[in-house]
């Protein structure tokens, strides 16, 4: 066997049913580990956590792409081989089917009695002629959707050969090609898209340019020019929480983000609503509401009385009652930089063991608790730092757990002096004018975290997926079969009608179908049936 011989051998192996089956099952097994170990694509924090919890195992898993299973070399190898095998399998089948579609049903076999559903009926001499019988069988078969062909008109035994269900194979091919279509649209089409995240506070707006995003994941072929210029402002965010049902107290019932979009630099906005399960489609991208929380407005004055910081700070929810964690960095404070780590409690309460907790997600008793640090925030070192974490290595705690002064507690509208005369901090009350002082339900703005995606291929993926389904149903439920009816003329002038079928692929009701045809044929020929 020469080189070409080997190639041919290898190709034949690869495209055999057995290999396809093996690869299919291997793919199922290979998909399992990715559900046992957190994956970077779906749960990046889980991966970090895994590294902390399993410091010896994690690097080993990482070296075999255990945290990136679905983009790993080995997983890709399996499905790519499977798809090569698939192509090698369906291309010849397509050619074959193309020929079959244009050919006539094959010659009637000499002996029908060996075939499935064989039935024979004896007819007395003179009742019907062979020609009439076959002609009527042809009519019946044709009406039932068979492609028919007569044999024996030139002498010999008269018979009709019929075949139906070509759609079965067509469906099967559509199914397999559509799988390839799905893979290609996911693989290539996905590369032109992007996905980005943006946290936006009530009253703020966001412009669709790269710099505005908190995080941004471009596809492989992404080009910044596809970011269409538009602006989106979050006018109001309204959550609704369960208040009556004791079993579900505080459970969210609805989130609604009221936004206004401004396209093409226009000043005339279009109002819209974004909800979970109801994204906004704007300027070629989709905006999803994926999270929300509180953004307390905090003002910090330094020791000299200058406003060193004043902004809404998004606090990340830690539990269902929205106890939230946030970080405030005041690099411009003099004489020293100030950093704070805070917990925000929308409805402050004390747990049985004396811990501060929130016992309802709405603003009933909003309270902010801050630990205060002074020193170097480490912002100048050029190391990118998350806005949600504070590096306290080069800082001194002046209020909080390790300091002489306890953590600072604030309610909306309150200002408190920072220890050592380094300044003051204010928790601003943002209630609309005219709100009674006792009503704090609107004192703290909320933020919405939005995911903004563009995936030009997803329509294609859906189309191919639906074709997969349609092809599957066609190929599973349409029977493909051949049926023959033969009229054998005996010496005494009597006639013997023979019926038989052949399944092409799974066809559990073939026998029944042949019997039905025989029955209808008898009826049509006027052969009365006994009860």
């Amino acid at each position, binding site marked *: 066997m020469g080189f070409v011989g080997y190639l041919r051998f290898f190709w034949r192996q690869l495209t055999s049913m057995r290999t396809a089956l093996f690869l299919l099952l291997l793919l199922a097994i290979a998909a399992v580990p990715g559900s046992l170990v957190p994956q970077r694509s*779906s749960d990046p924090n889980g991966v970090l956590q895994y590294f902390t919890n399993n410091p010896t195992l994690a690097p080993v898993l990482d070296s075999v792409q255990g945290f990136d299973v679905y983009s790993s070399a080995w997983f890709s190898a399996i499905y790519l081989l499977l798809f090569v095998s698939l192509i090698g399998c369906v291309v010849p089948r397509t050619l074959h089917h193309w020929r079959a579609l244009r050919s006539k049903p094959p010659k009637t076999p000499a002996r029908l009695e060996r075939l499935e559903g064989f039935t*024979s*009926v004896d007819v007395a001499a003179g009742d019907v002629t062979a020609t009439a019988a076959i002609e009527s069988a042809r009519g019946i078969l044709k009406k039932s959707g068979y492609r028919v062909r007569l044999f024996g008109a030139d002498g010999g035994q008269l018979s009709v050969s019929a075949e139906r269900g070509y759609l079965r194979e067509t469906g099967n091919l559509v199914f397999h090609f559509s799988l390839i279509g799905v893979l290609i649209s996911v693989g290539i089409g996905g590369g032109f898209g992007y996905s980005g995240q943006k946290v936006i506070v009530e009253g703020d707006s966001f412009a669709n340019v790269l710099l505005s995003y908190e995080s941004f994941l471009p596809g492989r072929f992404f080009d910044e020019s596809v970011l269409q210029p538009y602006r989106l402002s979050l006018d109001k965010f309204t959550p609704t929480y369960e208040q009556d049902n004791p079993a579900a107290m505080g459970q969210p019932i609805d989130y609604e983000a009221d936004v206004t979009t401004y396209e093409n630099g226009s000043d005339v906005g279009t109002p819209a609503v974004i909800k979970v399960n109801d994204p906004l489609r704007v300027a070629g991208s989709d905006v999803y509401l994926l999270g929300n929380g509180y953004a307390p407005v905090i003002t910090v004055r330094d020791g000299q009385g200058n406003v060193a910081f004043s902004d809404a700070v998004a606090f990340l929810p830690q539990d269902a009652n929205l106890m939230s964690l946030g970080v405030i960095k005041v690099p411009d404070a003099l004489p020293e930089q100030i950093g704070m780590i805070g917990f925000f409690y929308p409805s402050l309460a004390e747990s049985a063991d004396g811990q501060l907790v929130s016992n309802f997600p709405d603003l009933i008793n909003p309270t902010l608790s801050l630990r205060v640090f002074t020193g170097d925030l480490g912002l100048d070192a050029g190391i990118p730092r998350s806005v949600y974490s504070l590096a306290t290595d080069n800082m001194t705690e002046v209020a909080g757990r390790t300091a002489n002064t306890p953590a600072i507690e604030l309610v909306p509208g309150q200002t408190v002096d920072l220890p050592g005369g380094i300044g003051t901090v204010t928790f601003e009350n943002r209630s609309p004018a005219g709100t009674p002082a006792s009503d704090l339900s609107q004192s703290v703005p909320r933020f919405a975290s939005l995911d903004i995606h563009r995936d030009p291929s997803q329509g294609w993926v859906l189309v191919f997926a639906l074709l997969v389904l349609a092809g599957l149903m066609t190929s599973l439920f349409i029977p493909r079969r051949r049926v023959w009816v033969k009229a054998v003329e005996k010496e005494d002038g009597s006639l013997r009608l023979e019926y038989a079928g052949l399944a092409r692929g799974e066809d559990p009701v073939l026998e029944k179908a042949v019997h039905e045809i025989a029955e209808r044929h008898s009826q049509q020929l006027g052969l009365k049936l*006994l009860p």
Partner: protein
Amino acid sequence: MTDFFVSSSLIAIWSAMSVYTLAFIMFTLDLAKRSASAQALPTSAADARSAAASVSGTSRAAASRAEGGDTIVLDKPPVVAKPVYRYKFERIAFALTVVAWVVHVAGVVLRGLAQGHVPWSNMFEFSLTATAIIVGVFIGVQFWQNLKFLGAYITGFSLIALGVGTVNFYTDVRPLPPALQSAWLVIHVFVAVLGTSFFALGAGLSITQLLQARRASSKAAGLKFLQTLPGADALENLAYRVIVVGFVFWTFTLIAGAVWAERAWGRYWGWDTKEVWTFIIWTIFAGYLHARATRGWRGGRSAWLAIVGFGAVLFNFTIVNLFFKGLHAYSGL
């Protein structure tokens, strides 16, 4: 009003469970009875019966011509085994199953009325509704084929699922969280359960097929009641026809899930644990279909694939829901 619906729903569920228990006992007695009558039966007769039950077996229509007229008798052979014996216990068991199922469905409907949304938004409700649909499919399928011999398997399985669901997973009536407020909840989950039901039947048939094949090959008596059931080939064909329907539903579930994920989570596929397992199940059953067309894989091996596939479905619902982390965190526990 809600309280009334909740408690009547629970009463219905517990009543259904007691009747299912009776049905299960009767189905088991029926199998025992079959064993007894099979013993009394000459083996050849039983084998002849199972041969007649074989869907692929060739049979001929007897045609005879009556005197004096063009009259033909076409004997339509039974495509399906006709019960040769009248099984009293089986009839009682099946009637009890239907009664239990009606009460069960009432329990499901009351639960839905209690909360004003579809009763399959957490694990308790899912067990409740899924078992109702599984038993419903089992009952419905009898109009097509007599598969009552799976009664002990189906009622036993449903009883366990319903019991564990009600005792261990019970959750109070709650409003739907925003992520579940979608028409897709109705479609996606319902079709997933339909698929599951057909896979459950397919697994039951495949288990019976394996037992039957073992009996045939070992020549040992094996479980006696098997002699009264269709042969391994017929069971394999039945399993195939049931699983094919399950596979179509499952494919739809997968696609509907992706469409929903795009709306709710902002991407249609992200290898979330639940997505991974849905994919694994799909691939196993695709393997099953291919196995049927692969030399050396028909029979026992493909039956094992059907059983493993259904095992993966159960795993997906129990272990993945309870212990795996992911976006599908709707167990309500």
